[in-house]
């Protein structure tokens, strides 16, 4: 899986690269518009992460260039400007997703996975983690062949865990993933706990192992050996 990361801030580039590298992706990066445009023109990528404000040009032009060249890469815009007009412009040009800074690496990871899943339509339609099988298109979850009925929030939570399996994800990150901007309100951590408790119970009722480890003080780790 090859990813092109276009981001001018070196520290951010380094961190994203490291995180995605651990996920098993091959990550190439470009720090300005010209280099980005060259790389995007020459190589094929599965996914392109592009910042809008770049030295020497706009990330939106890279999106346009990719689309004009008929690239099949999934495109995620990462921008410091959380403006709806930039977002609409980017999506209109053919970008698949839009993530406003500061985002969490786990969130970025889950967006990339979702995007790649949608792209590989004809490939594998289900995600299998040991005894858990998920068919994302139908939002269907089964354990050892038996269907588990999950609420929307429980399903989202499970998908987020599986996208970031074997990683510590903080409660804040989970809250932001599940509730978006509304997560700012009060005791979202308590709600995560409620949803998680129900999810665990439903999975374990069907004979699933308990993969969710509580990391004291921070969050959870969906640990799959």
């Amino acid at each position, binding site marked *: 899986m090859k990813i092109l990361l276009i981001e001018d*801030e070196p*520290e*951010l580039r380094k*961190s*994203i690269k*490291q*995180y995605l590298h*651990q996920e098993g992706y091959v990550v190439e990066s470009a720090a300005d518009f010209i280099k980005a445009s060259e790389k995007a023109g020459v190589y094929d990528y599965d996914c392109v992460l592009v910042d809008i404000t770049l030295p020497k040009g706009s990330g939106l032009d890279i999106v346009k260039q990719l689309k004009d060249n008929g690239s099949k890469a999934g495109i995620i815009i990462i921008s*410091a*400007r*959380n*403006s*709806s007009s930039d977002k609409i412009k980017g999506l209109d040009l053919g970008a698949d997703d839009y993530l*406003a*800074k*500061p*985002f*969490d*690496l*786990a969130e970025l990871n889950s967006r990339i996975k979702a995007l790649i899943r949608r792209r590989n339509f004809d490939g594998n339609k289900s995600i299998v983690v040991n005894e858990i099988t998920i068919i994302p298109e139908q939002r269907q979850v089964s354990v050892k062949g038996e269907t588990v009925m999950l609420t929307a929030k429980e399903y989202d939570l499970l998908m987020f865990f599986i996208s970031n399996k074997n*990683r*510590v994800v*903080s409660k*804040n*990150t989970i809250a*932001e993933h599940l*509730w978006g*901007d*509304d997560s*700012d*309100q*009060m*005791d979202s951590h*308590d*709600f995560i706990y*409620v949803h998680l408790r129900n999810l665990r119970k439903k999975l374990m009722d069907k004979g699933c192992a308990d993969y969710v480890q509580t*990391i*004291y*003080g*921070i*969050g959870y780790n969906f640990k799959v050996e």
Partner: protein
Amino acid sequence: MKLISKTLIYYLLVSLPLLVVAGLLSYFLIKAELRDGTDETLLSEKVNAEKLIRSLKTSNTIYLSSDSLSNIKLSSGSLLNPDFNDTLIFDQEENENIGARMLKSHYTFNGNIYQITLVKSTMDEEELLEGILATFTLVIGFLIVSFVIVNWLLSKTLWKPFYSTLLQLNKYEIKNHEHHHFNPENTIEFNQLNDALNKMMDKIYSDFIQQKEFTENASHEMQTPLAVVKANLSLLMQSPNLKEDEMNRLQTIENTIKKLSSLNKALILLSKIENNQFNESDTISIKAIVSRITDNFAEVIQSKNINLDLNLSEDILVKMNPTLAEILITNILQNAIRHNNDNGKITIESKGNQLIISNTGMPLSIPEEQLFMRFKKNDASKESLGLGLAIVKSICKSNNINIGYSFQNSLHTFTLNF
């Protein structure tokens, strides 16, 4: 006081005494002149009387007029210089005393001293004087009236550019700056005024733009460093063998970054609202928005065991930006939940064009008039940024929605007048 009234008053203050003095002066001058005329006539009559004495050589009294006031008679007195006097005579026709001028003189002829008394009524002169005075008053009156008219016409024409500049200044709104321009005038002073105003307004506008761009850019610029911290924090969290104490610190850092980032987002939102960057509008159903948001908050409302009473039988349709409408109601509702008691109550009802949201809760710990100010918050709520209601106020202001707050019977009530 209007400029025209002031000018008029100053003009009258100066001109009225002048006119009165001029009137009095001319009255006395004319009067003196007329008296001189009468005296001349009397003197020439005196010469005639002397001629008469010489020709008649009379020793009897001669009456020179029908009223027998003017006469010549023999006098035993000494020679006196001719003497003029003002006197009153009785006019039988008019049956009243009238003013008259009398000349007494003596004439010696053939050893006899004759006393010549000549009386001439000054009634005609007085009438003439009255006529002149009346004319004079009329002229003054006419002058004042014509001054008022001329002044009014002048202020209509000469001051017209000034009043149009004033009107434009009153209507000035910074968001319509491009449409405001003070046109050149052919009066030098007004032209200078308009020039100066144009320069000043442009300066203010460019400062304003810079200021607002600064707020927005500064907030945006902060997002990238925050992203760097957040990303590194995520990586740090993955390190194995973190001690409990270290994890707690990581959590604190993460919470702080989250707060900083929310603060930043809220400030950007505020500056965007104030800069009118949400300009697309649509017809919005308030009912739909309220039910969507209450659904979003269902879990929280349930967990606090809050009794939500929705009474939206009449929908309110508003033309405004959908995002802003959503933020507006979210913020008020979020507030109503956050500052509610456990087992409290929230009521949302619509009345005509009014949306009324009330909730139970402790009385405000800040003065009511600071409720909508930035960074003013009830100290009890650490979660709050203190910007939610500032954003609400800002949205209301930019969309001409009237918002009111009251606290009665331990119920906080927000009333939105769409």
